[in-house]
C-alpha cells in the first residue's frame, strides 16, 4: 500500500510541475487582444442588446445564445435533487439493524418546542417579504439590475424553509417532499417546453425569434428568456425544498 501512495504523490508533483511550466504558454491575462476576448465574445457584446433584448450580456448568452447549456444546467440541478432524495429516503427505510432511524430529529417546528411568541410573529412578518423579494428578483431582472431564475428560486426556497423550520411539518405555507420533487420536474419541463414550442412553430430548438406573435425580434427573445427564467426558478426552488425535506423528514411514509 505504501508503494502506491508514494507513486501517487510522485504523479501529483510531476503533474504540478508540468502545469506550472506549461502555464507560460497561456495568453497573458487582462490584454483585450487575447484570443478569448476577440474571437467570439465581441459579437455577444455588440449585438446582444438588439438580438436578444436583454441589457445584461451574461443573461443574453446564458438564456439565448447558449440557452441549451442552461437547460442542461437546470437538468443537473433536478438530477442532483433526484439523487439526493433517493439516497436519503433509502437510508431511512430500513437501517441494517432493522430500526427506523430518522436522519434529523426535527419533525416538530421550533415554535412548538420553544413555544415563544417571538418566533411566530417574526416568521409571520419575514416570510411574505422574502417571498415578495424572490418574485421581484425574477421579474425585475430586466433593466440591467442583477436578477434571474437561479437567484429567485433560491430566495423563494428560503421563505418556505423558514416556515418549515418555524412551524414544523404541518406548516401552512409549505410544499411536501414528494410534491417538491414533482414541481422540480415540472419547472425544468417548462424550460424544455419553451424549446419544444419553438420546434412546433417550425424553428430550431429554443429559437425564440420564430414565435408567431406580432412583436419585434428583440421582444420575442426577451419573452422567451423570461419564459425559461420561470422554469428555472420553479426547478431551483422545488429541488432545494425536496432535499431539505428528505433531510428533515421524520418517518418514512410511503
Amino acid at each position: 500500500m505504501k508503494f502506491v501512495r508514494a507513486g501517487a504523490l510522485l504523479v501529483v508533483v510531476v503533474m504540478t510541475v508540468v502545469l506550472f511550466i506549461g502555464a507560460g504558454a497561456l495568453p497573458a491575462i487582462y490584454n483585450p487582444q487575447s484570443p478569448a476576448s476577440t474571437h467570439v465574445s465581441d459579437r455577444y457584446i455588440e449585438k446582444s442588446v438588439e438580438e436578444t433584448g436583454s441589457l445584461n450580456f451574461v443573461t443574453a448568452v446564458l438564456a439565448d445564445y447558449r440557452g441549451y447549456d442552461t437547460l442542461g444546467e437546470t437538468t443537473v440541478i433536478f438530477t442532483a435533487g433526484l439523487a439526493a432524495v433517493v439516497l436519503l429516503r433509502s437510508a431511512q427505510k430500513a437501517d441494517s439493524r432493522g430500526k427506523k432511524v430518522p436522519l434529523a430529529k426535527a419533525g416538530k417546528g421550533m415554535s412548538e418546542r420553544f413555544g415563544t411568541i417571538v418566533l411566530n410573529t417574526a416568521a409571520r412578518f419575514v416570510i411574505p417579504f422574502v417571498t415578495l423579494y424572490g418574485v421581484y428578483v425574477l421579474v425585475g431582472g430586466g433593466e440591467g439590475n442583477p436578477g434571474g431564475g437561479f437567484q429567485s428560486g433560491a430566495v423563494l426556497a428560503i421563505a418556505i424553509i423558514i416556515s418549515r423550520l418555524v412551524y414544523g411539518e404541518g406548516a401552512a405555507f409549505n410544499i411536501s417532499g414528494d410534491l417538491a420533487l414533482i414541481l422540480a420536474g415540472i419547472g425544468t419541463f417548462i424550460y424544455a417546453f419553451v424549446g419544444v414550442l419553438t420546434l412546433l412553430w417550425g424553428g430550431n430548438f429554443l429559437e425564440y425569434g420564430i414565435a408567431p406573435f406580432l412583436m419585434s425580434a428583440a421582444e420575442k427573445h426577451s419573452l422567451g428568456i423570461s419564459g425559461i427564467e420561470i422554469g428555472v426558478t420553479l426547478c431551483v426552488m422545488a429541488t432545494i425544498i425536496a432535499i431539505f425535506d428528505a433531510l428533515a423528514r421524520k418517518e418514512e411514509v410511503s
Partner: protein
Amino acid sequence: MKEQLPALIVIVPLLIALLSPLVAYFSTRLLRGLGLTAAAVSFVSAVGALGHALTKGPWHYYFGNWAPPWGIEYVIDPLSGLMAVLVSFLSLVVLIYTDSFLREEGWLKQGIHYALYLLLTAGLLGMTVTGDVFNLYVFLEISSLSAYGLIASGGYKATVSAFRYVLVGTVGASFYLLGVGYLYAITGSLNMADLTVRLQPLLDSQAVLIAMVLILVGMGIKMALFPLHGWLPDAYTYSPPAAIPFIAGVMTKVMAYVLLRYFFFIFGVLNGFVPLVLEVVGWIAALGIILASVMAIAQSDFRRMLAFSSVAQVGYIGLGLSLGNMFGFIGAVFHIINHAIMKCCLFLVAGGVKWKTGEHLIEKYAEMSRRMPLTMGAFLLGAFSMVGIPPTAGFFSKWYLILGAIEKDLWIYVVVIILSSLLNAIYFFRVIEQAYLKKAPVAEREKFVEDKKPELPATMLVPIVVLGACILVVGILNEPLVSNILLMAFPGGGL
C-alpha cells in the same frame, strides 16, 4: 418534424425524464409506457439521423438557430450517428429489462429511477452528438450525476462506492474542464469544428500539449483507463442489478468515444505532440490490459470479475486510439460497439442469475445451465466474444486492432492482445466449467427441479437473448458495418 431529428434524440428522453415523478404519482404503468416510448423514439430518430448522415453528409443542427461559434450545434456524422444508435438501442433494451426489478417499489422510487435512467440516457446521447466542447461537459455532468444516483440507491456498501465514484468522477470532470479552459484560452472558441481550424497553427505550442494531457487524464478517469480505474470495481460490484448493465455497458464507452473524437478529429493524429501522447497512451493501455485481465482471474465474485474485464477491454480501445492509423480507428470504434453489447449482455445475465437465485459468487453458478438454459446460452455467446472466438463480434475487433498494430510495426501490442485473449479464456472458461460441467449440491438441485416457473420473466429474458443474438449478428455483419459507416467516419474519409 423530420429535420429536427438530431434534437429529438436527446430532448425526448429528457422531457419524459422531467415528467417521470409527476407521471409516477398518477400511474406507474403509464410511466413504464412513457419510458419505453421515449427510448423507442430516441432510437428511431437516432437511426434516422444516421441514415441522413450517411446519405447526405454530416448534419449540423443549430440550437436557437445561432451559427456555430456563437451558438451550440449538434453534429451527426457517421461516427456520432452510429454511437447514438448504439446508446439508444442499449438504453431501450435495458429499460425493458429493469421493468421487473422495479415492480414492487413505491411509486416515488419508481418515478425517480425512471427519471435518473432516462436522464443518464439523455446525458450520454447528448455527449455523443454534441459539437460543442462545453455542452459536452454539461451533459457529462448530467450523465455522471444520474449514474451516481442510480448506483447509490443500492444499499450501504453501494453508498460508499458511490461516494468514491463521485469524488473520482468529479476530479475527472474538473480535469476535462481545465483542458477545455486551456483550449478556450488559446483559440477563443468552444465549437469543435471551429477549434479544429483554429488549432492548426498552434499545434506545436506547449499549451495544446497540456490541454491534451488534461483532457486525456480527465476522460481517462471517466473511462476507467488502467491506472485511473480505482473507482470501477466497487461501483460495479455493489450497485443495484437494475442500473448496472446500462452504466457498465455504455458509460465508459461514450467517454472513450469522446477521446476518439478529440484525438482523431480535433487534434489530428499526425501533427504536433499528438503521436508522442498517443504512444504513452498505448503503453499504458497495453500494461492495463494485461494487469486488469490478471486481476480479473483472481476474483471470486462474478460482477467484480466482469468489472476488471471491463478495465481490460477499455484498454483495447485505448490501444486502438493510440495506433492512430485507419485500422486502429476501425478496431477501436468496432470494439466500442462490441464491448458495449457484450458487457451489457453479461451484466444482464449476472442480474438475471441474482434475480433467480440471489447468487453472485462464481462457485454458486454450479449447474446453472440446466436451470437457466437461455440466459447461460447468451452468457456463452458473450464469453466467446470476449475471448475472441471467430464468428462472434469480439474476434473481428481484435482482427482489426492486430492488423493496425502490424501496420505500425508495433509487435508488442500484437503480443499483448494475444496474451490477453488467452487470459480472458482462462477466467471465462472457469465460469463456463462451473455453469455447465459442475454438479450443484444436492439440496439445491431439488429446489430448482420442482419449481416449474420459466427461468426468468419474459421482460428480462427477451433483452438477454436479443443482446446475445446481437453479438453474433454484429460479428457476422461486421463488413457492411465497417465499409459503409466506420470508413466514412474516419477523418481521412474512405481510404
